[in-house]
C-alpha cells in the first residue's frame, strides 16, 4: 500500500471500513482478531458482533449525515 499505513472509509448510512495497517484493541487493551484484511466497524450501535458490522444498520434504517 505504498506510503499509506491505514485508512478509514466512511460508508454512507453504514459502517466504517478499515484497511491497511491497523490494530483493534478491546476495553482491556487486548487485541481483537480482525479475521480479515479489510474490516467493517459498526457505527449504528446495533450490531450483534460489535465492534464489527453485521448488516443490521440496513434493517434499522440507520442514516449518516454527510
Amino acid at each position: 500500500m505504498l506510503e499509506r499505513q491505514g485508512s478509514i472509509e466512511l460508508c454512507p448510512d453504514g459502517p466504517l471500513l478499515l484497511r491497511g495497517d491497523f490494530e483493534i484493541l478491546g476495553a482491556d487493551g487486548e487485541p481483537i482478531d480482525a479475521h480479515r484484511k479489510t474490516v467493517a466497524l459498526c457505527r449504528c450501535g446495533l450490531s450483534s458482533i460489535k465492534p464489527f458490522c453485521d448488516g443490521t444498520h440496513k434493517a434499522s434504517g440507520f442514516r449518516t449525515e454527510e
Partner: protein
Amino acid sequence: MRLPEARGNASDALFTLLSRSERHARGSGGAIAEAVAGAEDVLTDDDLQVALFVLYELHYRGIDGVEDAWEWHPELLAIRALIEAAFEARLREVVPRPPRPEPTRRAVADALFELTADTGGPSLSRFVARQADESQLREFLIQRSIYQLKEADPHAWAIPRLEGVAKAALVEIEADEYGGGDPARMHAAIFAQTMRGLGLDDSYGAYVDQVPAITLASANMMSLFGLHRRLRGAIVGHLAAFEMTSSIPNKLYGNGFRRNGFGEDVTWYFDEHVEADAVHEQIAARHLAGGLIEAEPELLDDVLFGASACLTIDGIVGERILAAWTTGQSSLRQQVTA
C-alpha cells in the same frame, strides 16, 4: 467430479459423446438442438440444465473419465452456445428490470441497496432459523453445495476483464473468499467442514444428481455471466446482490443450526458470512459495481440485470425449497440417506 446421471435425450447424447476420446468427436448437437427447441422453460428443464452444468464443469475442475481436451472442442462450444442462448433469453424474460440510477458510484450503490433490501416476506432463512429439522438442514446444505463448494470461482473469471477501482474491489473481496492466503479459511473449505459436521459427503459435485434443475440453473447462471466477457456487468451485479443479501440471512441460518444443537465447527461458515459479507457488500456496491459503472457507464443495464437475476433465480430456489418443506416433502429429486 463424477459424470452426473443424464436427465433426458440431450444430456444423454452429450454424456455419451464425452465418454469418448475427444479426437473421435461425432455429433450430439442434433439432440441438443431438439431439446432446446422443445424445452418449455429452460430454467426448470432438467435435461438442459444438467447438460449445461457439465459443459461448464469442464472449465472448473473437470469430470472424472472425461478428457480435459474436450473443454475447448468446437463442437462442445457450439452445443454450449445453443443452450446458453436459450438460457440467457429466458433469464432476460423473467428477470424484472429495476429502475435505472444515475451512472455515479453513489447512485449505483444506493440503487443496489434499495433493490436488495429485505422485504420481510416468508423466507428460507427465517424457516431455517425457526423450524427446520435436522434432515431439512441436511437438504439445505446439499442444495447449497452445488455452488458453495466452488464459492467465488464463477466471479473470479471477471478479474482480468476489469480495470482500476472495480478490479481492485473484486480482488479485495475474492481474496477474502479464498481465505486471505489460508486454505483452511477458504469459504468453500469452511462449507465443506459444515457438510462433514452433518455427516454429508463434501466431495465436489457429490450431490449434483439430487438437486432440481433450478438449483443447477442458479449455478449455471453465474458461469454464464462469468465466462462471457460481454456479460462482465452481469457477473459484477450478481456478486453485489449476492453479498448484499448475505449477512442477515446467514445469521438466521446459523441460528437454525445452533437450535438443532450444532456447535461452532458447523456454524463457523454462517458466522463467518455474517461478518465477512457486511464488509463485502460495502465494497461490492460502492467500488465494484459503482466503480465499474463510473468507468464503463454503458454496462449499467447489465449490472442491474445481473443483480436482479441473482435475486430472482435464488428467490425461486428458496421458494421451491420452502414450498416442499411446508407440505412435508423433500426439496430434492431423490431422498438422500445420510
